C-alpha cells in the first residue's frame, strides 16, 4: 500500500471520537552538564491517537522509551518537541489551573505497588488524597466516596484504616487502581500494572481492569512488556523500539501476522506455554544501541535479521553476511565502552590496549569460513583503520561498503493491511521484498 492511502486512512480515523492525539512527540533527557550536546533520545518522534473507550497497548523492551512516553503524556516529564492533544487541547503547554484540571482527567497506575503507596498513610488516606488535593466536595462525601471506591475495586470497607504493609501485592495494586479512579478520570495510563504479580493474581487484576473499563467507559494506555497480557487486554497495540513506534495496529491482526521485522522477532522470542509447539525462532543478535547515539537510518538496522543488502552483495552467503554484521557490531561496541584510565596508561606505555587485538577478532569471525576475496579485502582495510586508532574511519568505511538504504535513510510509517496498521520499515516499499517473505526463507 502506498503512503497516500495511509493519509486517507488517518483522515477517516480522526473523524471518529479521538480522546488523545500525539504528533511528533520527542522527549530528550539532557545531562545538564556543560557539554550536553548528546541527549538521551528516550522518545524520538512518535505519533498516534487513541479512541475513546479503547485500550492501546504499548510494548517494547526495557529502555525503549515506553515508560517515558507514558510519563510525558501525564506531564511528569516535559516534552522536547511535538504536541499531545487531550480532547483537542494541547497539554504540553498547560500551566497553572489548566494543568491542575488536566491532572484530574488523566491518572496513572504504577508498576510497583510497594513503592507507589506511602507506607505511613492508611488506605483510606491514600485513596482520599487526590480528592483532598482537588478539594472535591465535603470531607464527609469524600470518605463516602473512598468507601465506595474500595468496594468497586474488590476491597472491603474496613480496609480503610489499615496500612499498605498489611496487604498482598495484588491487593496493593487494587488500592493503586482505586486511587486512580477517585476523580473519575476519562483516561488512565497503566504502567506495567501486572508485571510484579504472579499469574493467578495477574488474571484477577486484568479482569478487574476490564470490568472497570466497561462500567465507567474508561480509555486505557496499557504499557507492558508481556505480550500475552497485551494481546488479551488491548484493542490496538503499538510496538516501540529505541524511542520509535515500529508498528501500530489492531492487536489480533498484528499478533497473527506481524508486518515489521522487529515485531516479528519480538513475537517469535516469546516462549509459548505449550511444549509441543515447534519453534522457528528468530533469535536476535546483540542488544539495542544506545539511545544517545541511535543509528542514522532505521532504528532497528543494527539488529535486523532481514535488513536490505546493497545490490552488489545480495548473493553473498548468509553466514558471511551475518559475520560482517557482527564485525560492525563489535566496532560499535568498542566505541561505546570508552577507554578507562588504566587503558590510557597502558596505551602511553606502549602496552597492549583495547584498540589492539584486531587480528584476533578478524580471525575469530572470518577464520573458519570461506570469504570471497573482494569482501575480505574490505574487511582487512577496515581492520587496518581500527588498528591505527581510527575506529571511526573503520566504521564509516564499513558503512559505505556494506550499508544499504536501511543504514542511510530513515524509513517512513507505511500502511500495511486494510485496518489502518502502520509499520516503520523500508521493506514495505514496492521495490523490496516484504519482511514476512524474507523471514520465510530464513526459517527454512
Amino acid at each position, binding site marked *: 500500500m502506498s503512503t497516500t492511502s495511509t493519509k486517507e486512512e488517518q483522515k477517516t480515523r480522526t473523524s471518529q471520537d479521538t480522546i488523545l492525539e500525539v504528533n511528533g512527540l520527542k522527549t530528550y533527557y539532557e545531562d545538564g552538564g556543560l557539554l550536553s550536546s548528546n541527549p538521551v533520545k528516550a522518545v524520538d518522534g512518535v505519533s498516534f491517537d487513541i479512541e475513546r473507550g479503547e485500550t492501546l497497548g504499548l510494548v517494547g523492551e526495557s529502555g525503549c522509551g515506553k515508560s517515558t512516553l507514558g510519563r510525558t503524556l501525564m506531564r511528569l516529564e516535559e516534552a522536547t518537541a511535538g504536541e499531545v492533544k487531550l480532547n483537542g487541547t494541547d497539554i504540553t503547554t498547560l500551566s497553572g489551573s489548566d494543568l491542575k484540571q488536566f491532572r484530574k482527567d488523566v491518572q496513572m497506575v504504577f508498576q510497583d505497588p510497594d513503592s507507589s503507596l506511602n507506607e505511613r498513610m492508611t488506605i483510606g488516606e491514600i485513596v482520599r488524597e487526590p480528592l483532598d488535593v482537588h478539594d472535591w466536595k465535603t470531607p464527609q462525601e469524600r470518605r463516602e466516596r473512598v468507601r465506595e471506591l474500595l468496594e468497586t475495586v474488590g476491597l472491603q470497607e474496613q480496609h480503610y484504616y489499615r496500612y499498605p504493609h498489611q496487604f*498482598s501485592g495484588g491487593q496493593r495494586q487494587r488500592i493503586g487502581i482505586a486511587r486512580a479512579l477517585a476523580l473519575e478520570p476519562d483516561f488512565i495510563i497503566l504502567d506495567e500494572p501486572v508485571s510484579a504479580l504472579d*499469574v493467578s493474581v495477574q488474571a484477577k487484576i486484568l479482569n478487574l481492569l476490564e470490568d472497570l473499563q466497561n462500567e465507567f467507559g474508561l480509555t486505557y494506555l496499557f504499557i507492558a512488556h508481556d505480550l500475552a497480557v497485551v494481546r488479551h487486554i488491548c484493542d490496538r497495540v503499538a510496538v516501540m523500539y529505541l524511542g520509535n513506534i515500529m508498528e501500530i495496529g489492531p492487536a489480533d491482526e498484528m499478533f497473527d501476522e506481524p508486518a515489521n521485522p522487529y515485531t516479528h522477532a519480538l513475537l517469535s522470542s516469546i516462549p509459548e506455554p505449550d511444549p509441543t509447539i515447534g519453534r522457528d525462532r528468530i533469535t536476535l543478535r546483540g542488544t539495542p544501541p544506545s539511545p544517545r547515539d541511535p543509528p542514522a537510518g532505521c532504528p532497528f538496522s543494527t539488529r535486523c535479521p532481514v535488513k536490505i543488502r546493497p545490490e552488489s552483495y545480495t548473493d553473498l552467503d548468509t553466514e558471511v553476511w551475518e559475520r560482517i554484521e557482527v564485525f560492525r557490531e563489535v566496532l560499535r561496541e568498542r566505541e561505546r565502552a570508552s577507554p578507562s584510565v588504566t587503558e590510557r596508561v597502558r596505551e602511553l606505555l606502549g602496552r597492549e590496549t583495547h584498540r589492539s587485538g584486531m587480528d584476533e577478532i578478524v580471525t575469530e569471525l572470518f577464520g573458519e569460513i570461506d570469504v570471497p576475496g573482494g569482501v575480505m579485502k574490505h574487511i582487512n582495510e577496515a581492520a587496518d583503520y581500527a588498528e591505527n586508532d581510527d575506529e571511526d574511519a573503520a566504521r564509516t568505511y564499513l558503512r559505505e561498503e556494506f550499508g544499504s538504504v536501511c543504514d542511510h535513510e530513515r524509513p517512513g510509517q507505511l500502511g500495511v493491511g486494510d485496518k489502518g496498521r502502520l509499520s516503520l520499515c523500508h521493506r514495505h516499499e514496492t521495490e523490496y521484498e516484504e519482511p514476512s517473505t524474507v523471514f520465510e526463507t530464513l526459517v527454512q
Partner: protein
Amino acid sequence: MSTEQATESRTKGEPLLSVENLRTAFYTDKEVIRAVDGISFDIYRGETVGIVGESGSGKSVTARSIMRLVDTPGRIENGRIMYDGEDLLDKSPKQMRAIRGGSIAMVFQDPLTSLNPVYTVGNQIKEALRLHRGMSGSEATREAIDLLEAVGIPDAHRRVREYPHQFSGGMRQRAVIAMALACDPELLICDEPTTALDVTIQAQILELLEELQEERDLGIMFITHDMGVIAEIADRVNVMYAGEIIESAPVVELFKSPKHPYTQGLLNSIPGQGLEDGERLATIEGDVPTPNEDPNYCRFAPRCPKAFEECDTVHPEPVDVSDGSGPHRAACLLYPDDVSTEEAVAVHRNGEVRGGDTR
C-alpha cells in the same frame, strides 16, 4: 536435549542429584514457616528439571538448601540431598565451599548483584579458576577468554578487561554463566536466570543454556514462575505450592493433561490461550498461604474449586497418575481416579509416614 533423549537417560543409571524429603524451616518470633516442606525429586545428567510456582512457594529456598546457603533464622531440618553417593547435608563448611562453584554451580536472577562492581569481569572468572582449578596468570586469562567466547560474547579479548557496568544486561548474565561454567560443573542451578531480562535477550540465554547442556551433558535445575519458559526449556517439571511439590510430570504430559487442580488453575490463568474476545480469564480465588502449620490437610483446599470435606483433615501424598508416558505424580485426594473417592482418600490417609529421622 530432546525429551526422548532425556527419558532415555532417566531409565539408565543413577540420578546426579537426589533430594529426599527435604524440609527447610524459618524460625521467626511469631511462627515457624515451613518454606520447603518434605519435597523429593531427582535430577539426571543431561536433563533439565523445572521447578515452577508462584512467589512464596519455596522454589528459591529449595535451590539455596541444595547449595547449603540457608541462613539463620532458616534451618534445614530434615531430609537428604544425595550427590555423587554422598549426603550434602553431612558435608563440613569447607567441603561445601569446594563443591559450591565447583561441581555444582548456581546462576542467580539478577546478574548485577552477582557480579562485583569493582573487579573486572575477567578477574572474577579468574578468581573461580584460581580457587577451584589452581590456575593463575596468563593461563587463567586465556581460559577466561575461552569461557567468554563459549557463552557467545564477541570480542572477548577486550571484554575480559571490562567492568560489569560496561556490559549490557544480557551480556552480564552470559558472563555469570561463564563464571558458573569455569570449573566444569556437572549440575547447574538456575534461579530465575531470565526473569530480569527482556524477551529477545531471554531467548538468547535460553538458547545458550540448551547448547551448553548438549556440549557438556549438564544437569540443570531451572527455577521460574513463567510457564512459557518452563514449556520451552524443561524436560521434567515439578510444580510447587506452599512448600510442597504438588505435581511432577514430564513437560509435555504436564501441559497436555495437568492433574492437580492447582496446576490446572495456574495454566488456565495465563492470558492468550485461544480465549474469545471479551472472555474473562480464569482465576484462582484467594492467595498463596504461608505454610506455618503441620501438613495434616491439603494446603490448596481453601482455594480449590474441587475441595471436599476430607481435604481439610487428610494430607494428600503424591500418587501415580501417569497414563503410560513417563512418571507423573500428583498430590491430591482426587487421585488415584480409577477408584471411588473414599478409597482414594484411604490411600492418602494410610500413605507413607512423613518425616522420618529429624536432624
